[in-house]
């Protein structure tokens, strides 16, 4: 069983502490900076929010870990489990669906070696189905590490994913 201790609550890297301290000054309430802070943690600390990270953030914002966990679990952009080196987000909202998102997804699964929501055995990819990414005009689409690939075909998927290490 994981135990929340004083130590886990206070071990945010000093650079992030400095960054968040400044970040808080932009908001009337300190805790309002929680979401941007979680994003930064995810970027800096291994691509996901580990229990240790959640507790450290809670410590910084003087919140209960349960509250930070509540926020982090609310948004799909936050990953609460370790994820692969590269994040593949396949849109399956209406425009993309109408234009063959299911085929894109199937191909992406094959090419990455993941099931939707899962991570490949070699740790290279994590694949997620996401809602509309705002690229409906050139549906279907997928995003690889935040870079959009629009108007793609299943063949393109292999090319896109095959090129990354």
């Amino acid at each position, binding site marked *: 069983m994981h*135990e*929340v201790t004083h130590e886990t609550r206070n071990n945010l890297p000093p650079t992030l502490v400095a960054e968040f301290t400044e970040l808080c000054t932009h908001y009337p309430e300190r805790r309002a900076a929680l979401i941007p802070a979680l994003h930064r943690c995810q970027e800096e600390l291994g691509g996901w929010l580990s229990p240790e990270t959640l507790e450290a953030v809670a410590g910084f914002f003087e919140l209960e870990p349960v509250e930070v966990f509540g926020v982090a679990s*609310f948004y799909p952009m936050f990953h609460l489990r370790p994820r692969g080196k590269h994040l593949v987000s396949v849109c399956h909202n209406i425009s993309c669906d109408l234009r063959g998102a299911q085929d894109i997804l199937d191909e992406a699964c094959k090419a990455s070696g993941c099931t939707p929501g899962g991570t490949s055995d070699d740790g290279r990819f994590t694949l997620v189905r996401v809602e509309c990414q705002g690229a409906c005009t050139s549906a279907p689409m997928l995003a690889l590490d935040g870079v959009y690939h629009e108007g793609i075909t299943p063949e393109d998927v292999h090319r896109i994913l095959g090129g990354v290490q």
Partner: protein
Amino acid sequence: MPSLTIDGREVSVPKGTTVIQAAEKMGVFIPRYCYHPGLSVAGNCRICLVEVENLPKLQVACNLPVTEGMVVHTGSEQAEDGRRAVLEFLLANHPLDCPVCDQSGECDLQNFYMNFGLYDPRFREQKVKKQKAVQLGPHVMLDQERCILCSRCVRFTDEITKTGEIGIFQRGDRAKIGVYPGTELENPYSANVVDICPVGALTERAFRFKARVWYLSSAQTVCNGCSQGCNMDMHYVLDRPHLNEGARVVRVKPRYNPDVNQWWLCDEGRYGLEWIDKARLQEVRGPGDTANADTNSGKATWEQALGAISKSLAEWKAEDVGARIGVIASAKLTNEELFLIREIFRDALGAQVSAWVPEDPGTCDEFLVKADKNPNTRGATLLNLTSPDAPEAERIVDEALAGNIDLLWVFGYDLVEGFGEQKVRELGEKLKLFVYSGTNENPTQALAHWGLPSAAYVEKDGTFVNHHGRVQRIGRVFSPLGDSREDWRILLELGGLLGLQLDWRDPQEIFLGLADAETAFAGMSYGTIGDQGVEVACTKPTEGVTAPW
């Protein structure tokens, strides 16, 4: 003071009052799930919808401050339609497992559905599945499917205990409450979340599947777990022994008292009541046939016991050596009983009487729980039976061991725990008469010459004074177990046998006598005490006493 009209009646309320509060003041009940008077307003459940004239849409009464001239309809067709729609949403993913739900019978989903239900549901989709038996902590079980996400429990741990164990995770129809992974809902007040959960999502592990609530009877009483004296309702069964392994007390629920415990109880008090039904002293035990027996091996009747005891007492009295009688009373007795002990033993017989016993202080906090685990120390003090007006119990014991006391009566206090078995054994040998009266089996009882079974506090009427000086009635819940008798009854009978003029027949009358004799209680009666209690007139300061709020 804005005035507004609710359901055709006008009312003036202080500025800042919400419509739900104003309605409540007039005796108009507006349904609610998330609103709780002891917590901040969340306004998330929408069941409290009311129609307000000149406002285009229905409003949530719990989060709508009144304004001058506002006209509110709580029961209009539009309002009821709104609630019906809200209920339809709340029940869309609800498992409807009332037949196996402990809350059934006291559930606000059931209650409000009776009034505003659709009765012909339109939801044909698959319901979302969630976890059904999540153990949140030592006392509380969670069923995530039954939860309507009102957030009362979350606000309780945020605002009342400030321990923040509970949170809401995920979103939409997958949202669920829970504790942070690897932690527990474990604080001294944890079970209160069960009381405030309006549905069957949070249930008491101790009550789980024990009884349908409609088989329970309820009576008002107070907790005797510490000197706070929290008000509570005791739920019990007498006619269905199979439900609770024969125990009468099934559970307790806090009873609102703004001056004592508001809406809450501590877990220690809530779950510290087993002794009422377990290991009780149920028969009179006496020396039996052996004339010189030191312990109470034989079964006896009340007549034999009180006859023998009063005869001995009368002899000592005749010899006018009352100081050779010692009485160790207890701050767990009622004021009425302590008063009788004082009248009979101290005043009529001249005995040394004390309710000042050694005790290690227990746990306490700044909320309800007090270190003094006796419910009536303040009463005993007002009756001059503790420090500094009475001798310490230890002195009485020492004098008895030194041979200066021949007769000792101990009310409820476990001498063995306080002074060790060796000393009590010696007392049994030295004393001419050694009487123990109490509710439960204990080592002292076994070493006394007479063991008299007393009624538990919920088996008798009477009053306690809490640490803050509030006189509160216990209220008799059910009758004494087995052969046990109320201490006041034992004392009255003894007084009669001693030929004393005590013309009271019951606790109510004894209390009037007490109110006459003690200025602190002047003018009080069971009527004026009512079900919320009253403060004693002169608050004789007791060290360390602070106002609870």
